[in-house]
C-alpha cells in the first residue's frame, strides 16, 4: 500500500513537473521560433506515445503511422484551406484549386467546411480506418514482419495517392499558406503560443491516458498478448480485439498529432506522411525506449531536436548518424535509452539477478519495467 501511494504520488509529481516545464518554463525561456519548433516536436511526441503503446506494449511494429498522421493533418488542412478561402478570398475555393484544378471544390471536401465535422473527423477517420484495418489484419492472425510490411506498404500507397491528386490534394506541393485557425489569425504571436499550449496539453493528456492504459488490467493483457499470444488465446481472451483496440488508440493519437502539426508548422505534404517519416516516428521511440511511458516521448523530442540542429551543420552526415544510433540501440540496448539507468544500476550493484533492495518487485511505479523492456520477437 505504501509503495502504491509512492507510485501514484510520484506519477503526479512527474506529471506536474512535465506540465510546469512545458506550459510554464518553455514559453518564457524560448524565443518564438524555437517554441514553434518545440511545438512541432511535441506533435511527433504525441505520435510516439501511440507507437509506444502499439509497438512497445503490444508488439505491433507499425511502420505506417504516417497514414494516420496524414489523415488527421489533411483533414485539418482541408478545413483551414476552405475557411481561409471564405474569409479572405470570398469565393470559397482554395487558391490552388483554381490554379491547377477545375476551380470547383470537390464534393468530398465540402463536409470539412464545418469546424465541428472537422474536429470529429480528425479523431474518427483515423480511428475508423485503424479499426477496419486492425480487424482485417489481426482477426486473420497476421503478425510480426508481415504486419510491419503491410503497414509500410500502406504508407507508401497513401503518399503516392496524394501526389497523384494534384487538383484536389495539392499533389507534391501539399497544402500550405494557411492564414487562420478557427478564426484566429495565425500571424499573431499570441495565437502561435496558444497552438503550442494546445499541443503541450494534448501531449500531457495522452501521456496520462497511456499511463492509465498501461497500469490497467487491459495493459497487463496487452503485454501478455505481446509475449505469449497463444497462451492468452487459450485463456479465453481474443488477442485480435486487444490488439485492434490499441492499434486504434495509436491511430487516433497520430491523427490528432497530425491535426495539430498543420497549424503549428503551416504545411502538410506527401513528404511528411510517407514511408520515411513513418520510420522516423519509430526511430525516436526505439531510441527513447519503446516499452516505457516516457521513453518514446523523450526519444521523439530529442531525435527531432538533434536532427533540426545537426542537419544544417552536417547535411548528409545526419542520416548516417541517425542510422548508426538506431542500429546501436536496437543491437545493444533494446530497451532504449530509458533502460540505461537500470542497466548501469544493475551493473554497479552486486549479483545481476539479486533482488532489488530499493524497489520491491511489485512496485508499480518504475517506468522501466523488466518485462516491458524485453525485446519482442518480430517473427515467430
Amino acid at each position: 500500500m505504501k509503495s502504491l501511494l509512492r507510485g501514484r504520488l510520484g506519477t503526479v509529481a512527474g506529471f506536474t513537473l512535465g506540465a510546469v516545464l512545458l506550459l510554464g518554463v518553455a514559453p518564457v525561456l524560448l524565443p518564438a521560433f524555437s517554441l514553434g519548433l518545440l511545438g512541432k516536436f511535441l506533435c511527433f511526441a504525441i505520435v510516439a506515445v501511440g507507437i509506444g503503446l502499439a509497438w512497445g506494449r503490444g508488439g505491433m511494429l507499425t511502420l505506417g503511422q504516417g497514414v494516420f498522421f496524414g489523415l488527421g493533418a489533411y483533414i485539418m488542412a482541408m478545413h483551414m484551406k476552405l475557411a481561409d478561402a471564405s474569409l479572405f478570398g470570398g469565393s470559397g475555393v482554395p487558391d490552388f484549386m483554381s490554379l491547377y484544378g477545375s476551380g470547383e471544390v470537390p464534393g468530398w471536401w465540402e463536409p470539412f467546411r464545418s469546424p465541428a465535422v472537422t474536429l470529429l473527423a480528425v479523431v474518427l477517420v483515423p480511428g475508423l480506418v485503424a479499426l477496419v484495418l486492425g480487424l482485417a489484419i489481426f482477426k486473420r492472425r497476421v503478425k510480426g514482419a508481415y504486419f510491419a510490411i503491410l503497414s509500410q506498404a500502406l504508407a507508401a500507397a497513401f503518399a503516392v495517392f496524394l501526389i497523384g491528386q494534384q487538383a484536389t490534394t495539392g499533389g507534391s506541393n501539399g497544402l500550405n499558406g494557411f492564414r487562420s485557425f478557427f478564426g484566429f489569425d495565425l500571424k499573431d504571436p499570441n495565437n502561435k503560443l496558444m497552438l503550442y499550449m494546445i499541443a503541450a496539453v494534448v501531449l500531457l493528456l495522452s501521456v496520462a491516458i497511456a499511463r492509465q492504459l498501461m497500469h490497467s488490467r487491459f495493459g497487463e493483457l496487452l503485454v501478455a498478448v505481446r509475449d505469449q499470444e497463444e497462451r492468452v488465446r487459450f485463456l479465453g481472451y481474443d488477442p485480435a480485439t486487444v490488439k485492434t483496440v490499441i492499434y486504434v488508440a495509436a491511430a487516433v493519437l497520430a491523427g490528432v498529432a497530425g491535426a495539430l502539426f498543420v497549424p503549428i508548422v503551416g504545411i502538410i505534404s506527401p513528404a511528411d506522411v510517407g514511408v520515411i517519416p513513418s520510420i522516423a516516428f519509430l526511430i525516436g521511440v526505439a531510441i527513447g525506449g519503446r516499452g516505457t511511458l516516457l521513453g518514446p516521448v523523450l526519444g521523439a523530442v530529442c531525435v527531432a531536436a538533434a536532427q533540426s540542429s545537426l542537419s544544417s551543420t552536417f547535411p548528409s552526415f545526419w542520416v548516417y548518424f541517425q542510422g548508426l544510433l538506431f542500429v546501436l540501440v536496437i543491437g545493444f540496448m533494446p530497451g532504449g535509452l530509458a533502460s540505461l539507468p537500470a542497466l548501469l544500476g544493475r551493473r554497479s550493484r552486486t549479483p545481476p539477478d539479486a533482488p532489488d533492495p530499493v524497489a520491491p518487485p511489485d512496485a508499480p511505479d518504475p517506468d522501466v519495467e523488466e518485462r516491458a523492456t524485453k525485446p519482442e520477437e518480430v517473427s515467430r
Partner: protein
Amino acid sequence: MRVSVTKRAFYSLAATAMATVLAGCGSQIADPASAGSTASSGTSCVDTSGSSIKVGFINSLSGTMAISESTVFDSLSLAAEEINASGGVLGKHLEVISEDGASEPTKFAERAGKLIQQDCTAAVFGGWTSSSRKAMLPVFEANDALLFYPVQYEGLESSKNIFYTGATTNQQIIPALDYLAEQGTKSLFLVGSDYVFPRTANKIIQAYAAAKGIEVLGEEYAPLGSTEFSTIVNKVRDSKADAVFNTLNGDSNVAFFRQYKSVGLTADTMPVVSVSIAEEEVPGVGLDNVEGQLTAWDYYQTLDTPANKKFVAAFKSKFGTERVTSDPMEAAYTSLYLWKAMVEKAGSFEVDKVQAAAGGVTFEAPEGLVTVNGENNHITKTPRIGKINAEGLIDTVWSSPAAVEPDPFLATYDWAKDLTK
C-alpha cells in the same frame, strides 16, 4: 481517499493548463481587411550595425534534389566570395548562413523561418522545386522577408516577397514552341513527371497548340523518380509525332532516353525538347542517349559573352575544371548580384526599401543584360534553344533577338486567356 487526492490534483492541474491555454489566445479575425494590420509579427530583426550583413542560402544538400541543388549552392557561394572580395554590399561583408532544405517542402518552410526569425538574414537565396517555393512563399510573406528563387518554373505566381531570377513560361516554354513551329512541327507528344510544373507546362502547351494548329498526339505522365518507360516510349513511337516535349525531371530522364534510343528513335527522326536537362544533368542521363537532342533555357556554358567567360573561368578555378555551369546556377549567381544592386540603389537593407528600388535594376549577367520588372518581380531573360554536342555541352541553335519581358500570368497572349481566369 488516496485516489481522490490524486484525482483532485490531476483535475486542478488540467484546469490550470486549460486556463493557461485560453490566456494565450490572441486576436481573432473579425474583419478580413484588418487582419494584415493587426499582425504584430514581421518586424525585422536584421542587424545592420556591424561591419557584416547576414544572408541566407537555402538549398537541398541532402535527399534526392541534392545533386542539382548543391550546384546552385556552389554558384551562390562563388558570387558571395566575389562580392566580398570587391568590398561587400554597402561596405558590409556578406556573412553567409547556409541551411539544408533536405528535398522536403516542410523542411524548406521550417529552415526559411529559421533564417528569417532566428538568424535575422537580410535576404535568402535558393529553392529549386516548385513545392519548395510554394512551401516557403507564405513564410516569406508572413515575415515580410525576401527570397530570391533561381530556377525556371511554371509561372502563374507573383509575390512581392519573392524575386524570380529563373525563366517563367514565356521565357522558356513558349519560345521553345515558337521554335518548333518555325521548324515546321505539326504534331507533338508530351511526356512529363507527375507534379505541378509538368502539368502546368502541358496545360500551356495544349492551349498554344490548339491556337496555332499543332496537333498534340498524347500527354503522358510518370511518377517522379519512375524508371519504367517502355509503355510511354512505345506510345511515343507509335504516335509518329514530329517532336516530343519533355518535362521529365531527374532520374526519369535516364530511363526515358535509354528506352527512347533502344526503340530506334533518334534526334533526327523525332527530336526531343527538354526543359529540365542542363549541362549538369547530361553526364547523369548519359551523353550517348541525349547527344543531338534539343534543350530550352536562357543560358548555356558555351555562351560567348565577356561576363560568361569570367563566370565560367571563376567557377572552374574555384571548384575544378571538370565542373560545368548551367542555367539555374547562372540565375542563382545573378540573383545575388541583383540583390546587391537593389540594396545599393535603395541605400538600405530594409525589405520595403529594397522592394521599392527593385524595378529597373539591371545586371550584366553571363546570359546578357537582365532587368528587374518591378511589377511582377521577375527579370528579363533571353530565351535560347540549344543542341547537346559531343562534349556534353550545349550549343545555341536559336536565340531570341532581344531579352523577353517576363509575363508569369501570360496576360499578353490571347490564346492563354482561359488558363489564368
